[in-house]
């Protein structure tokens, strides 16, 4: 999966990829003060040509908003919602709107799920539908957090650690491996990293083609930009 960290104060963005074995569950957001947890489980391609790189994507998300008694399990097949004991099962194949006690939920057929928590965060999950007979790829999901400033200062996780901003500086550009994408040195979190100026795609408006987001790309699974190591974010279950 590719991560994009929007930094509006700097009018810039950071991005990195995370790849591990398909099936791994990562903690994306953990906010002990609001009781919010977002975990995501990866899936791989249906088939991988021998010797080629294994790409992974998120196939399931488990979301808990403890303060509001909300629990969501979103997969490429279905959406299970429970709020204070009430449960509902929704499918991507039908548009639906649920107005809950503290949460509004809107499914746009085969496209997106928007979850708005009262006086709190809003997030969007995008369904990337892939032709069923595609020999390599399968459906996968994207997760977009809006209003991330509403989390507490203690928020952490692969995405959450950036919700309160990140300080960095970038040196002059110099030619990199790809002539179209120059490199630079980034000073961040006490590290000096070689980063590359590139693009990643935001699929909220155009689920098929996405919109290019210029960003500083951090190599090696985000090493140096994420706190600790990737393995620190691996959890045993979705909830």
């Amino acid at each position, binding site marked *: 999966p590719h991560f994009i960290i929007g930094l509006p104060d700097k009018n810039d963005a950071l991005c990195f990829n995370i790849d591990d074995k398909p099936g791994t569950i990562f903690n994306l957001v953990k906010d002990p003060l609001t009781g919010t947890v977002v975990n995501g489980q990866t899936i791989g391609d249906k088939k991988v040509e021998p010797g080629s790189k294994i790409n992974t994507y998120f196939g399931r998300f488990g979301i808990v908003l403890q303060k509001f008694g909300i629990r969501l399990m979103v997969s490429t097949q279905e959406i299970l919602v429970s709020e204070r004991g009430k449960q509902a099962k929704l499918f991507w194949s039908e548009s639906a709107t649920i107005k809950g006690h503290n949460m509004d939920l809107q499914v746009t057929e085969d496209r997106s799920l928007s979850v708005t928590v009262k006086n709190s965060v809003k997030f969007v999950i995008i369904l*990337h539908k892939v*032709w*069923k007979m595609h020999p390599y790829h399968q459906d996968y999901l994207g997760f*977009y*957090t*809006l209003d991330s*400033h509403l989390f507490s200062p203690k928020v952490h996780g692969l995405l959450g650690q950036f919700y309160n901003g990140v300080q960095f500086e970038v040196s002059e550009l110099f030619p990199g491996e790809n*002539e179209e994408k120059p490199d630079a040195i980034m000073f961040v979190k006490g590290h000096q990293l070689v980063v590359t*100026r590139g693009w990643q795609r935001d699929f909220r408006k155009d689920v098929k083609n996405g919109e290019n987001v210029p960003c500083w790309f951090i190599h090696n699974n985000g090493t140096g930009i994420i706190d600790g190591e990737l393995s620190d974010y691996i959890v045993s279950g979705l909830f």
Partner: protein
Amino acid sequence: SVSSDEIEVQSVKIDCKVASRFAHTVMTSTALNKANFSQEVFFEVELPKTAFMTNFSMEIDGKIYVGEVKEKEKAKKQYEQAVSTGQTAGLVKASGRKMEKFSVSVNIAANTSVTFTLTYEELLQRGFGKYEIMIRVKPKQPVQQFEIVADIYEPQGIAFLDAHATFITNELLPLVKKTLTDKMAHISFSPTLEQQRPCPQCGGTLIDGDFVIKYDVNRVQDIGDIQIVNGYFVHFFAPADLPRLPKNVVFVIDRSGSMYNIKMDQTRKALVTILTDLNEEDHFGLVPFDSTVSPWRPSLSKATPENVKAAKEFVLTIEAGGWTNINEAVLAAVNILTAAEKNNTVPDRSASMIILLTDGDPSFGVRHLPTIQSNVRNAIGGNMSLFCLGFGNDVDYNFLDVLAKQNDGLARRIYEASDAVLQLQGFYDEVSSPLLSEVHFKYPENTVNSLTSSHFKQLFNGSEIVVAGRLNDLEMNDFPVEVSAQGLENDFMVKGQASAQEKSPIFPDQEYIFGDFTERLWAYLTIQQLLDKRDKSTAEEKVNITAKALDLSLRYNFVTPLTSLVVTKPQNDEKPEDAVIADKLTEAQRTDTQDSGPTSSQTGYRYASAPVNTGHIPSHRYASTPVHSVDGD
């Protein structure tokens, strides 16, 4: 193309991949400037005029300059200052009858290499029972690594495969390697440096001409072959073993003064052969015209041996002189066909057509072109097809093209050359055997959208109808299909079910056949049809149609008549970087008839030179609301 011996062409590679008739060709060439001074290197390649360029790049000393497809008007505006200074030359020019030439030059520093890469795509059209891939190669000097590779994948199975080249000698023949396995074909040609030379110590190269691959696919099912891939479908329709329909054809022949001598003689010769080839079930008429219109007979004649003999004798008496009265001549032909249908003198199940041959603009009678088009359209009323042959360079091709398209036909340019007789006969052969008329394709309305044309006036023997569209639901892997038409004895009606087949990947690196090729085929076909439709629509409709075609051209990176390819290139110390523009030519712009290249009087080609921003850091567009996300691509 090199300017001195001190430039060495190191490699030329032409890589063509075809999946279900959609061809994707990449031409790559690397040259090294061995001199200790900078030199100009030219990259000149020819591509089929039916193709759309999709990409061009130059890599110089590790730096890549990539062409960008932009809206033509915007590109023009961007560089209009340069254009206005009179720096006009063409990056794309007509070249012969089937090709257009893309050429760009760049100044290369001493001991520096340059790699040019041009990519283009086209939907191969079936004609005379085969598809043809034409690759023109003229490397000008022996090349260290020369390679033509073609991979063809046709899910219907490949019926035959042939590859030959105009420059092939007995020595080179064994180097053309062909492998054919049911659905896949691989063709390669890779002569060594020595094998490219005419003789061991000779200069020059044998490799100069056309490398042509021809093949056809197996045809079994009536419904045709429908492929569903990734939310798009394409339907290829050319059923086997259909009896031909009788045709009712009126030849409208320009005998005005400008046809005098060679053109008139070639027309007579072609007509004699064409008349000989008529079937006895066919009906025909002849309408020679200059200022006056003088039909051979007032009504259609059955193509009996006696009538054909009499017609041939008449044809030989046609002499050139006078003005050009196209309006009256075509209307006379329409009247003859209409009367025959009314009087039931032609079979119920038959195809009616007019073939107009002219070499100039209307100069007598109604001369206002839109009025002629309107008159003809109203008279024909969708009841017959009109094919227009523009003979030579003095015709208003655009006028004939629109006239034909408005009446379910097509226009063709006949080049003034010694083989004009063969060209005329060739065109006639293409349309002489209608198999079906009024062919309608029906797909469930709630299942598909963005359909390309689904009604065709005729299906001709040896050709193929292609319809493509999008599925409303990506998950949908089957849907019903219905094709109806008029056949010789009965109404042709077939119903079937289109269903996606699990297929093994053929080009795994590019995921070519499962990636977006069906979608690109759909986009290519849609753009072609929108451009055709645009030509015959009202001003109001034209705006919408143009917008749609432009949007698709930009979205799929096709260089069409609405877009331009803007290429940035390094120049010299005074002008650090320049931009040049490549446009797609329209048929009306292809006035050149010589294979040797364009003439200086050609219009429609532009060369612009202006500074461009080559900064590598993308400009920022990020929203002020922070968005943190994780997704895949």
